[in-house]
């Protein structure tokens, strides 16, 4: 027992506990990510050899007629996709959470049912909605007719003007459970004394919500926002399932994820290009990182967290 000396050697059991996690995480996540970023500065020659070509890939992505129009469209579409989630999914999630937090016997039932689509695979959800919206089956049309809105029905998924909004809303329908449950958890954490005090002062439920509860759950609003952002700029499955890798009609539903997949693996007329794929992924990385930093430094630091 020579452990009496002040400077003990690095304890071996700590290494044993940490090594597997650090190893797996480094080899299968950190290293490939860094390697992808590195590859975005290379080009693959005809003999499959790699050569460094600086920022040529980025210049190509922003200016070449084979890439630039697709890139900018995918970026724009992705922002629309994100905007629909922020404007529809998160407010509905907040509304449902506020109603659930009021209590009532059926609360658990509603919670379970509304969260249900969230646990299903995006592939399943995509196909289900393709069937529901299919004019051949006519289910959506009969539903609309039943509430005298039949004239609104159209081939929403097939028309370039409506396809992107339609897939965005399907994604909202599936994932509304996540903001709902996060807001709900934050709302039921507010001590009763606070809302009780407001009620005694004669505030209505509406006032209590916006003046007392909402400021308290602002940190959760930020978390929901950044989770939505990261999730949306990483989305792929739904559009690939419903509209294929070409994100039709006429690339109307193309977002960064589908653009990345096509660039990497190619499509009918174009061969895949791993280093250009890496360049697209690097741009996605940059966008997501920017979002995370904006959240951390502009939102999370300024929003007051109330110690309850």
């Amino acid at each position, binding site marked *: 027992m020579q452990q009496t000396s002040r400077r003990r050697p*690095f*304890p071996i059991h*700590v290494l*044993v*506990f*940490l090594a597997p*996690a*650090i190893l*797996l*995480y480094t080899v*299968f*996540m*950190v*290293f*490939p*990510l860094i*390697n*992808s970023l590195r590859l975005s500065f290379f080009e693959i020659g005809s003999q499959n050899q790699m050569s460094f070509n600086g920022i040529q890939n980025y210049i190509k992505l922003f200016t070449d007629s084979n890439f630039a129009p697709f890139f900018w469209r995918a970026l724009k579409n992705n922002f629309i996709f994100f905007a629909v989630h922020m404007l529809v999914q998160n407010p509905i999630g907040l509304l*449902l959470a506020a*109603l*659930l937090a009021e209590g*009532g016997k059926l609360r658990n*039932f*509603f919670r*379970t049912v509304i*969260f*249900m*689509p969230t*646990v*299903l*695979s995006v*592939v*399943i959800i995509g*196909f*289900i909605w393709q*069937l*529901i919206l299919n004019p051949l*089956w*006519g*289910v959506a049309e009969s539903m609309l007719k039943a509430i005298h809105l039949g004239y609104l029905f159209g081939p929403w998924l097939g028309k370039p003007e409506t396809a992107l909004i339609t897939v965005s809303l399907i994604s909202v*329908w599936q994932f509304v459970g996540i903001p709902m*449950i996060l807001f*709900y*958890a934050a709302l039921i*954490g507010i001590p009763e004394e606070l809302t009780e005090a407001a009620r005694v002062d004669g505030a209505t439920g509406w006032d209590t919500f916006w003046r007392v509860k909402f400021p308290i759950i602002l940190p959760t609003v930020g978390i929901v926002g*950044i989770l939505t952002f*990261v999730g949306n700029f*990483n989305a*792929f*499955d739904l559009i690939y*399932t419903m509209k294929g890798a070409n994100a039709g009609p006429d690339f109307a539903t193309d977002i960064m994820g589908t653009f*990345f997949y096509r660039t*990497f*693996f190619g499509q009918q007329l174009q061969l895949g290009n*791993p280093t250009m*794929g*890496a360049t697209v992924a690097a741009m996605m*990385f940059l966008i*997501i*990182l920017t979002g995370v930093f904006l959240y951390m430094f502009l939102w999370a630091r300024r929003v007051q967290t109330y110690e309850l």
Partner: protein
Amino acid sequence: MKSTPLYRLQQVLGKSIPILILTIYSLIALFPIAMVLINSFKAKKAIFGAPFELPDSATFSLIGYQTVTSRAAFPTYFLNSSIVTFTALVLTLLIGAMAAFALSEYDFPGNAMTALYLSMGIMIPIRLGTVGILRLMVSLRLVNTLTGLILVYVAQALPLTIFILSQFMRQVPKDLKDAARIDGASEYRIFGMVLPLVRPALGAIGIFTMIPIWNDLWFPLILAPSSKTATVTLGVQQFLGQFVSDWNAVLSSLTLAMIPILILYIVFSRQMIGSITAGAVK
């Protein structure tokens, strides 16, 4: 004041409007799923003729399920998904718990840096490294193997698992561990002692790790697209691509793919949702 009709009307409305909204939204959430489930048990004529009706003796048919079981390798897909999900889950929980224990229990040089390094992966989606992952898998000869998928899923799930578990492990009373140390227990024994104490957290993380792995399309599509290694999600996606016009087959395969997750969800939904909301009412 309190018994005026207006006040009572407000009371009634205040109680019933929330229920009404929640009911309507629940119908919106359930309706598309129910339509697929119901119609998968009907003959083609009834699917189109009376889509909203439950199957009866005249319209009941299992033709879709027959097509699916004869044409698609569903048992293989289920087996693959189960192996990948289960192995990745066990590895994530074990390896994640070990790292979380080290970070929360010992004050070693570089602790804070290690924690920061590991938590960077929480916000950065692993998909962005796909080009690098595919190259790595090619050089390790792990393309079209379930092992490749498992390794990626474990790496992806570790950051959040470690982050959450180390917070739970910090709450385990120190006296307990110190008493064991005085009795001469090794650090590995103490880890084995702490693990059951964070069981609720392990359960919750387990469920939330499982669902995205089971549902993932991206990595099966890119790393293991062969018919032998296809998971349920990929298998269904490819099967549906070929049988788009066979409505019976489409509806039945969707139902088959949904059922296991729905059952799991209905059984565990209380624990699942409870685990998120538990943090709020500490």
